[in-house]
């Protein structure tokens, strides 16, 4: 039997709490007015179309529209799970994205730290600018250059290998090499650009902290360890968390262009497989189902990693 006075106290506590909150909202009206604007954008372009996920459970046809198309339950999901290549495709996707996470999260941080230690201003900005360039080169050109450099006939690398008496290596047609080619060409393209966010975070560190440390005789490594890294830690954690939220997303364009019959056993990932299975035939329901599935997995990953970050440190997404 509940103690009535206790309940009353609880209720009045709750009421007080609510009053306090309301008071805050009233006092900081303008904060809510500000956030209203992004919320309106998100409602219009993100939440409003969201009802469309239901086509994953329907046989969507433009003839009947989204609401009018017949319900089919989990048909598209079963079709996907039962397809012969399901396991292979999931495994390929995870392999590439985990590999790329392991490499592409820490490398920009290290590079940014190294940039930060250059004392010569012009050298620093030159090197930075140069490393950003690859980010702007179109994927088609990148893949063309991969072919040019790694081709088995007249490829630059293989020419060198043969010059030193080695045997030509089939970089492009080997399923074993594909993940490396994919990930490292991505690093080449993106690592410089990836430092930008850390550079910005570092530029907020007051310079006199370093000076004080040097006066006390701290070495450069100690400064990095004790001043720079702690200062950019929140940024590191947040970008790492956000990166894990893309675990099922391996980009379509580049994979598709790098794909060939001989590396298909490792290069077929979710996005390319869905394209072949669904979009080519206009089966939007099927691709919606696959999309929903992979987003769920992404979300779970993000949630777990975020929980972990909350547990270990004090930075987290929410």
């Amino acid at each position, binding site marked *: 039997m509940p103690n009535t006075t206790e309940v009353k106290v609880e209720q009045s506590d709750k009421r007080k709490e609510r009053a306090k909150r309301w008071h805050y909202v009233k006092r900081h009206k303008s904060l809510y007015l500000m956030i209203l604007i992004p919320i*309106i954008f998100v409602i219009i372009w993100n939440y409003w179309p969201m009802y469309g996920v239901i086509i994953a459970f329907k046989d969507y*046809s*433009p*003839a009947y529209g989204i609401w009018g198309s017949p319900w089919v339950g989990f048909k598209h999901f079963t079709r996907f799970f039962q397809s*012969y290549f399901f396991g292979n495709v999931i495994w390929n996707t995870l392999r590439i994205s985990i590999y790329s996470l392991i490499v592409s999260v820490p490398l920009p941080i290290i590079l940014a730290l190294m940039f930060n230690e250059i004392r010569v201003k012009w050298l620093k900005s030159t090197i930075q600018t140069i490393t950003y360039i690859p980010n702007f080169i179109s994927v088609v050109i990148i893949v063309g250059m991969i*072919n040019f450099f790694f081709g088995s*006939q007249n490829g630059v690398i293989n020419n060198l290998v043969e010059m030193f008496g080695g045997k030509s290596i089939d970089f492009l047609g080997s399923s074993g090499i594909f993940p490396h080619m994919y990930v490292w060409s991505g690093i080449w393209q993106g690592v410089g650009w990836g430092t930008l966010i850390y550079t910005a975070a570092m530029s907020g560190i007051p310079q006199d902290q370093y000076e004080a440390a040097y006066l006390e005789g701290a070495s450069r490594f100690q400064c990095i360890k004790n001043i720079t890294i702690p200062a950019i830690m929140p940024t590191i954690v947040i970008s790492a968390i956000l990166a894990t939220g893309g675990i099922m997303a391996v980009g379509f364009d580049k994979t598709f262009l790098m794909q*060939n*019959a*001989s590396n298909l056993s490792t290069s077929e990932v979710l996005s390319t497989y869905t394209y072949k299975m669904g979009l080519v035939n206009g089966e939007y329901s099927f691709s919606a189902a696959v999309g929903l599935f992979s987003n769920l997995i992404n979300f779970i990953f993000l949630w777990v990693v975020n929980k972990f970050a909350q547990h270990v440190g004090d930075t987290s997404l929410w």
Partner: protein
Amino acid sequence: MKKWKVALTGLALSSVTLVILSGCGSKSTGATKVDSNTITLMAPDHSDVHPKNEDLWMWKQYKKMSGVNVKWETVKDWDQKKQLILSRKTLPDAFYQTGWSNDELVKYGTQGIFQPLEKLIPKYAPNLNKLMKEDPSIKKALTTPDGHIYGLPYTGSDPMGGGRAFKLYFNKKWLDKLNLKAPTNTEELEQVLTAFVTKDPNGNGKADEQGYYMDSDQFGPLELMVKSAFGLNSAGRTAMENNYYVDDNNKLQYVFSSDKMKEVWEYEAELYKKGLIAKTAFAGVDYDKWVADAGKDVVGLFSWVGRDFIGAEAMANYVPTTILNGPNGQKGSLVTQSPVMGTSAFVITKDAKDPKKLLKWVDYFYSEKGSEFGFYGKEGVTYEVKDGKKVYVDKILNYPKGAQLGAYQYVDNVYAGFFPYLEQPEANKEIAYGREPEVYTDAPLDNLPKQILPTFMSTPDESSQLSTITTDMNKYVEQARVKFVTGKWNIDDNWDQYISQLKKIGLDQWVKIRRQQYVRYQKN
């Protein structure tokens, strides 16, 4: 500093209000009123290489001739956008020259987005009707399982024309220099290619000659020719591309599990091992690099529907073999398609008020006269007759980007195919462009396949069953092909395992459905 902040908020706020207002205020697009003499057509956008449709000479001319006013809407990236377009409230009256698969025709036809035309054709499209009477296979290829026709064909009577027939193209300079003739069978093919890669026919002292060499996506054309040599072309090219053929007992079979396919891959593996097929056959060469290489005289053999694929400069140096025979006197046949090269060249939608008028408008292009008009234009304006042959006028022939694009500045039916139209014979087209037509020494027209099947029309149920199996089998076969040809797998050891995997994916189910469709096709 302050100003831009103010500007920022101002802009953000005003844009939000604008959206909200416009959302309430404006009606959805595309519902403009048109008079009864105007039809609206949607077509692929090629304005990167020719004038907009409404400004094109031919369409202005045809407006005068037909008295019908066309409102064109053109679309770039058709494949990505076609589903979105169907979800619009109001559709154009018809889709012109756009690609819908047979499955889509059946699906949207059954659901009422596309109008059935089989009853209207005899009355309002007499020219097309005449063609369908002369060649019953046209009607068969267009008719769905429940007897409807939802799309008009891109058709032609010349088995060599309209991109229908694949051929082998050999480097003529090399043949002449080595004193060889273009091969006619698989054994000669091997000998000639061996001579190509070992005897330095381009005379530069380097062993840079390639045998079969194309960009890496194009192994298929060679394999089609070899399949024909080993007897898999009994139902024509479209059948092979859909992975079926018909055996001696008139039974439909899956191509990639047949014993003949074993021989095909064994033969290709042999060529590959001897270096007669470029090592880059499966990876690493893009079309543009290949075109550049062709200019350096290193391509011994390629395969395509026309030699112009290798570029205007190099093409004159290549001579065709149309029929590749097998070993031991086994006869090959021409790798050609059904006369229906496209089933969705003209599709009339639910929103068309007057389908009869649309049919009448398009039917002209299925007549001899209309076909000539679509391809050549008008005498004295776009072409002239020289020695009894129609040739484009000089301003077209001397167009800087080539005669084909030159003609495309005036007429429509010269670029990208799939028009609702009766295609001109290939030789006439070559002459029109001011080229010598290709000479065939191996009598392609006397060596047609036993029958030429189209892509079958599936019922919605069949197509949903087939699509997963087909995608997965194709993917598996694609990987297996590389392994067999490059020697990673060997036919004797790995064949059984390969077949058992195909069965796991659903080979038997696939064959069952395809056989049903073949039976249905024969009955029609």
